[in-house]
């Protein structure tokens, strides 16, 4: 993966969608609530892009604005280089979206729901069979939507998006309420779609799911951009890698490791947490074991302690855990974005 940001004009040419200074407020009884505040979003073409933020941070509002469902107060948006919502009709056939929960007519069968959508866009009815088969619902197509489990509803919604054979798929919290098997299934589906050359934008507050599947991420809080870039770059901001070792005498082991040029510190339950010393480059677990073994200290356990997206997310959004609210004071300044988004998946 590239490690530095390409020039802006080059980035824009490769973007599936972008927003600039996007702002949206809602009127409430307590005043105007800022949902999205000057958001700059850059989603590269191809791959899976995680769109992360606490509940109420403006993810769904941003997606709705991109899809023309709600109007921004100010700012610009583009999808496949076309300004939206002005030219949304020109690109809508390239976008498949599920906003929040799957929304179909509960009394209609799954097939009838998809037939209506297919009729609206002029897709042949044979396409309905294809997409139902693709998501594994061919056998249940004649069942009413209301009889579906949450996982099946989610799959039907994905089938709906596939009717258009889109280049960009937008999934808003797609795994809400799903069991582990359902989550795994959706994750595999998203990865498969990205590997087939499509761009997948997935908004979520479940970090593990995004970390496992996303190539790039954007993190927002209170409607503002907090960080964006490749997952690895974002993770690098969460702290240095460390290994936790369990040895018979942690104090002696710490002395040995310090002498060997590591930065040890006491870990939980009689373990030692070992990091690379400042300026020493990446931590090598083999060097840690070698340093201890040469002094006849043998490990009972070695566990990598890598920063994960959840830690980064929590540190970035610690002041936003309640999501967007009525703004009385200016929010903290956003962190500078990491290296810009890059094409890391297939072509669209």
């Amino acid at each position, binding site marked *: 993966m590239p490690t530095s940001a390409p020039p802006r004009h080059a980035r824009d040419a490769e973007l599936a969608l972008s927003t600039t200074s996007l702002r949206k407020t809602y009127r409430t009884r307590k005043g105007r609530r800022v949902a999205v505040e000057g958001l700059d979003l850059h989603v590269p073409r191809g791959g899976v892009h995680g769109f992360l933020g606490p509940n109420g941070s403006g993810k769904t509002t941003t997606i709705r604005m991109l899809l023309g469902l709600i109007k921004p107060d100010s700012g610009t948006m583009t999808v496949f280089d076309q300004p939206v919502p002005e030219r949304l009709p020109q690109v*809508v056939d390239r976008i498949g979206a599920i*906003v929040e929960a799957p929304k179909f007519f509960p009394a209609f069968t799954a097939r009838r729901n998809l037939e209506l959508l297919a009729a609206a866009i002029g897709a042949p009815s044979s396409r309905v069979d294809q997409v139902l088969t693709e998501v594994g619902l061919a056998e249940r197509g004649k069942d009413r939507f209301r009889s579906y489990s949450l996982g099946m509803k989610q799959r039907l919604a994905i089938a709906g998006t596939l009717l258009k054979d889109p280049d960009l798929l937008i999934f808003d919290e797609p795994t809400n309420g799903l069991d582990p098997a359902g989550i795994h299934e959706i994750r595999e589906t998203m990865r498969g779609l990205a590997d087939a050359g499509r761009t997948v934008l997935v908004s979520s507050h479940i970090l593990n799911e995004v970390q496992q599947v996303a190539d790039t991420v954007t993190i927002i809080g209170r409607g503002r951009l907090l960080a964006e870039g490749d997952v690895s770059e974002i993770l690098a901001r969460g702290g240095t890698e460390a290994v936790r070792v369990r040895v018979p005498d942690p104090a002696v082991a710490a002395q040995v490791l310090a002498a060997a040029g590591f930065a040890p510190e006491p870990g939980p339950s009689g373990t030692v947490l070992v990091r690379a010393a400042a300026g020493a480059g990446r931590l090598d677990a083999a060097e840690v074991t070698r340093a201890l073994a040469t002094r006849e200290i043998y490990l009972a356990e070695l566990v990598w302690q890598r920063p994960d997206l959840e830690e980064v997310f929590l540190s970035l959004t610690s002041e936003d855990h309640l999501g967007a609210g009525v703004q009385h004071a200016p929010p903290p300044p956003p962190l500078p974005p990491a290296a810009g988004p890059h094409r890391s998946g297939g072509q669209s």
Partner: protein
Amino acid sequence: MIRLVGAELTRLRSRRLSIVAALVVLAAVALFQLAIHSEVAPSAAAQARGQQAYAQAQKDWQDSHAANVAECVQEGTSQEECESYDPAPSPQDFSAEPTAFADVAGFGLTTAAYLAMFASFLVAASFIGAEYSTGSLANWLTFVPQRLKVFGSKAIAVLLGSALLGAVAVFATLGLTAAQVAHHGGPLVGAGRLAAGSGRAVVLVAVAGLVGYVLALVTRHTVAAIVVPLGYGLVRTVLVAFTADEDAPLAWLPPYLPELNLKAFLEHGTSYTQYREVPGGDYTDIEKHLSFAHSGLYWLTLLVVAVVVGGLVFRRRDVT
């Protein structure tokens, strides 16, 4: 656009409420046919009773006529006028002959039209209300983002569906009534006038559907749309006090009330009364006419306003 209208019509006819509404309207038509059966096909017993009653009335008249007229003349009235006060019984007044088609079908047409209007209002309001309540409207707009196109296609589907329901209701009523009357030897008179009335009824049913659609679209809820005419009904009971008198502050209002225009359009003109105070503190009824042209313009204006307001609201509104 045709594609979208087709999709909307498919949804409209697939909805359970549409099917139930159509069945209820047809059931009402069937009930009406049962109700008028005795009028268009009097039984032999009814005919015998009629003849018996005529004979009795004839006898009573012969027994009392001369005395009645003499008493009348004694009071200062002319002989001719007194004769006219006590005419001989007419066999037609007592016969159980089949009723003329126009007399029976006219009432049926009005009933069918009002019922179909109510049904189409309900179906149309629910048609868009369900989209808001299930959230499927947002999903639909991710496929077709052109708001006015979506609004127009739904409106056209509602108009066509409502017109079809209206046509089925009024033509089934007229057709079955005509068949009954003809079968029992009654005269099929006034069919042309009723056919014109049927056309106007179909137009009104379509307008009722469109009004239901726009109200539900603006209020974003089926029930809220239904509450609007119910609320009007309540307001109307209060309004009577301000419109009944010619000198009342809202005396100018009746020609703009929907129910009067409904009647005027359906019946090709109608009349209403207002009171006028006469010297001496008494009141007299003044009959006023509401023309068909006025009601036609009224409904055309309402249709245009509904379409423009609905379109503007739908175009500007956030859909969540």
